[in-house]
């Protein structure tokens, strides 16, 4: 398939003489660690030597801002901030991908054949070996709540999770948590009571765990955490036993992509057997396709964890998460709940941390 | 004169033979078209009497063949079918006259004589009726071998009557002959007729008037 695509690409190049194919660039704006994605990008460049890949690793918010850049729009947009990606697609910033790969992609991992979730990433808890010396490490969300309530003093300042205001991913995860149960807010209050540290990304949380600053982390990206745990034996990863959220990295071709041919080639690669094989075998990201083999496949994860995986649905309901007033209301409640139990003796760190919460929509 | 009779009814055939031979003719009778066709191809006849209803085919076919060959031998059609369509078709095909059965021998003889006269005229350009003769080449008419000294119009009139002698000459034909196609008074022709009548008095010939139809030069005895 790649060879045929190259042939087609060559053919198109011959048709358009002014377009020098050899230096045909492809701009990918991605909220995806370059080192994590490196094997994938290498494999693509190998398969399409004539496409000069320009991979720009940015934060989710930066990526989102680049989409609306009318001067130099990117070709492909990749982000794990699912609601924002969804909103951009709804705003007609994506173009439809008509290819066998796109058609064969599972319904639950795509929307309008315009945006595709190409990775499958479980959300996990992680704890430091130290924790198990004092308490039973939590296996479920309820365990976590009990732990935080019963060992409030022991765990004070030792717990970490995403900041909903500074991380689109974190915000999305909490929104999704809140959708499943109202007891989530008790968990937030309990986290607030233990002066939980709010981080902007999973890497910071993992670093804190390894350094011993944190004993327990909640809502980490499983892909990163599992790789980390392999090289850091003091960190243990726990896939929640009651339910485990699953996040997807979403990619779409920009409506005004300057290099649509290359962009289509890139997306087809991501969705194709080869790209998915690289994702499953050479990156910590889990592949979506069920027909590839490797340590990191959705199927293997399901086999391990059972049916308790709850992928964040890739549909219009995500759009509600980026609604400004809903977001404001959510953030307001988060703040209220976070401070509820610590009100009598307000902690020092948190209010200052939450003062960063930006009220406006994140675009 | 040599006459060819094509007739399959033996009674009629014999009557024709007996009636026409005494007039100085040689009569040959055939009862089939095939024989008659051969006879016509091999020999000369002055008149053909043709019966249309013969067992071996339609007489009209034979007539058509004859005329196609350019043979102008006069043909008198005899038939029991007196349908006008047959008659018209026969005349169209080049028959010279038509007689429906049953017919009286007298009528037959008259028709035959007229046809033979015409046939003769075709041969030597000479007309003869009773004691009267007319030579069309020289324009000389004789009565009892005496040259008749006639003015031009009377001569034309005589020729016209003699051409149809024994039968009626249409009045229009005579008028055209004498006066051309111009308008002419109703009595103009009558004037010349009465002059000619006077000249023929005592010749055994007379001119009979058919009101509105024409005139006939006939022998007094008939």
């Amino acid at each position, binding site marked *: 398939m790649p060879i045929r695509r190259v042939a087609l690409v060559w053919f198109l190049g011959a048709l358009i003489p002014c377009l020098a194919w050899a230096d045909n660039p492809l701009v990918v704006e991605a909220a995806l660690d370059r080192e994590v994605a490196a094997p994938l990008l290498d494999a693509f460049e190998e398969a399409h030597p004539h496409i000069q890949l320009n991979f720009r690793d940015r934060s989710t918010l930066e990526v989102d801002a680049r989409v609306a850049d009318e001067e130099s729009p990117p070709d492909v947009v990749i982000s794990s901030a699912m609601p924002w990606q969804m*909103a951009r*697609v*709804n*705003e*007609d910033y994506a173009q439809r991908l008509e290819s066998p790969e796109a058609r064969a992609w599972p319904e639950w991992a795509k*929307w*309008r054949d315009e945006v595709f979730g190409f990775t499958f990433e479980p959300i996990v808890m992680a704890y430091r070996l130290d924790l198990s010396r004092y308490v039973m490490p939590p296996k479920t969300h309820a365990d976590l709540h009990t732990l935080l309530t019963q060992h409030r003093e022991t765990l004070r300042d030792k717990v970490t999770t995403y900041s909903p205001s500074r991380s689109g991913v974190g915000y999305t995860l909490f929104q999704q948590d809140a*959708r499943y149960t109202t007891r989530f807010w008790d968990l937030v209050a309990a986290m607030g009571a233990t002066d939980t540290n709010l981080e902007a990304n999973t890497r910071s949380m993992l670093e804190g765990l390894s350094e011993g600053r944190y004993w327990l982390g909640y809502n980490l990206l499983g892909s990163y955490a599992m790789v980390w745990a392999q090289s850091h034996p003091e960190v243990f990863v726990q896939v929640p036993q009651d339910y485990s959220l699953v996040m997807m990295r979403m990619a779409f071709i920009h409506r005004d992509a300057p290099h649509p041919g290359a962009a289509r080639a890139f997306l087809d690669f991501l969705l194709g057997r080869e790209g998915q094989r690289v994702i499953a075998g050479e990156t910590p990201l889990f592949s979506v396709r069920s027909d590839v083999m490797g340590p990191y496949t959705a199927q293997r994860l399901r086999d391990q964890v059972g049916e308790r995986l709850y992928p964040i649905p890739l*549909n*219009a*309901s*995500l*759009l*509600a*998460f*980026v*609604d*400004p*007033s*809903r977001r404001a*209301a*959510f953030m307001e409640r988060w703040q209220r709940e976070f401070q509820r139990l610590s009100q009598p003796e307000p902690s020092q760190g948190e209010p200052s941390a939450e003062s960063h919460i930006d009220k406006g929509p994140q675009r | 004169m040599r006459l060819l009779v094509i007739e399959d009814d033996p009674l009629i055939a014999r009557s024709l033979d007996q009636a026409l031979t005494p007039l100085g003719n040689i009569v040959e009778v055939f009862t089939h078209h095939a024989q008659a066709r051969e006879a016509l191809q091999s020999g000369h006849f002055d008149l053909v009497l043709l019966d249309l209803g013969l067992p071996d085919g339609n007489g009209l076919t034979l007539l058509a063949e004859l005329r196609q060959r350019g043979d102008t031998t006069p043909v008198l059609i005899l038939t029991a079918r*007196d*349908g*006008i*369509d047959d008659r018209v078709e026969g005349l169209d095909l080049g028959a010279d006259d038509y007689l429906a*059965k*049953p017919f*009286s021998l*007298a*009528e037959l003889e008259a028709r035959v004589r007229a046809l033979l006269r015409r046939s003769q005229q075709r041969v030597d350009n000479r007309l003869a009726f009773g004691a009267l003769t007319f030579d069309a080449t020289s324009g000389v008419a004789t009565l009892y071998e005496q040259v008749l000294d006639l003015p031009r119009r009377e001569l034309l009139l005589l020729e016209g009557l003699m051409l149809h002698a024994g*039968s*009626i000459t*249409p009045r229009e034909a005579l008028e055209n002959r004498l006066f051309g196609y111009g308008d002419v008074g109703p009595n103009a022709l009558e004037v010349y007729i009465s002059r000619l009548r006077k000249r023929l008095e005592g010749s055994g010939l007379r001119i009979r008037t*058919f*009101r*509105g*139809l*024409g005139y006939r030069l006939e022998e007094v005895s*008939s």
Partner: protein
Amino acid sequence: MIEVEGTLKSRLAIWLLATVSALGVLLLAEAYFSSQRAAERAYDSQLEAAALTIAEAVQWEAGQPVVEIPSAALQILATRHQERVFYAVLDADGQTVSGNLDLDIAPEWRRRASSQPIWLNDAYHGTQWRLYGRELDSAGWETQDPVQIWVGHTMTGRESLTEVLFEHAVTRFVIMVLLAGVLMLLAMRVALAPLRRLRQQLRRRDADDMQPLDTRVPEEMREMAETLDSLFTRQRQGREALLRFTADASHQLKTPLAGLQTTSELALKSDSPDAWRQALVEVHGSAERTSRLASQLLSMARLRHAVEANATARIDALALLHETAFDWAQRDAAQAHDIGLASLPASPQYIQGEAWALRELLGNLIDNALRYTPPGSVITLGVVSHAQTLELYIEDDGPGVSPEVMAHLHHPFERGGRQDTEGSGLGLAIVDSIVRRHEARMQVESAEKGGLRVRLFFPYLTQHEQG
């Protein structure tokens, strides 16, 4: 002449096809629009539901409307066709409380939505959107200002539902047409069964069988069956008349033939040449009469026979009269009479007719005149032009006939009350027949000079027909 022109089946099929096609176009157009309406209704109700779900979430805090957009509302809006979605909650001043696209809600729309919910189509960024707006009266502690909720989505689902519904309608229609066609064929077989039955019955009939039909036919075929019956009746009558006529004719011919036989028999028994001669004279005369009778019978039969189609033509009556008179004047039989033409009009006079029959007609009249007048009589033919009709007449200066006899003159085999002259009396009957065939009128009267005058009045050809 039977000309086969298509089949009933193909004729019906063509009609069916034509009507079905015309009807089909209408039906399919209707089906398309109703599919569109159905899809519209189905999806509009989703817009309505989404708007209601959002309305449920509107609350008032400190005199300001706040809304926490429910995810469910957006999922309802997106439908399973994954439409792109739009929503906006506007306060009483038209300010956006919450919303997701910069799709402008025109003041005019807001005004209309304030009285009742509205649906409308709008193009946004080159795509057609279906929008729904409704006003929500809300009760709060401080204010009761209404808010407007607007929702919308793209129209992929509507289009594909319309397509699906339309396809179903088309499929149903095609199946219906095919079924109707098959049923039509079956119905035709059933409906045409009486026709087949009649055909078989007619085919089985003997040529001589003129009995009325004995069959069951549907009402529509009654007329045809009755026509057939009446045709059989007429044929039967015609045949009976022909038989009667043939019998009469045979009788008529037998009489003179019997005379011939006895005369010749007597002559053969005799030794006297005078007796032979006398007999031969009688035989000759009788033969002549018999052949005339035969030809008249033939004419009569021909006249009674069915009229040949379109045998009539435009005929110049003057030429015909001239020709016939000329023909007769030359005949032997006419030599003792003075046959002639009165002076004729200068221009041709046209009538419609059959030339042979008209010649026969005039010939018979001339023949009659020759036979029933003494030698030397004057017979004159002429033409008089009247306003409406053209009169052909023939008159003689013979003895004439009495008025009583005149009324019976044209019955066959009647001889005008005279037994003295020869003739069968068929002549005037033939004349009468031909006159009726030409829609002409015949008048027989006494001539001024004492003889008989027969006048025939023919309808003129109209100017148009002459042209």
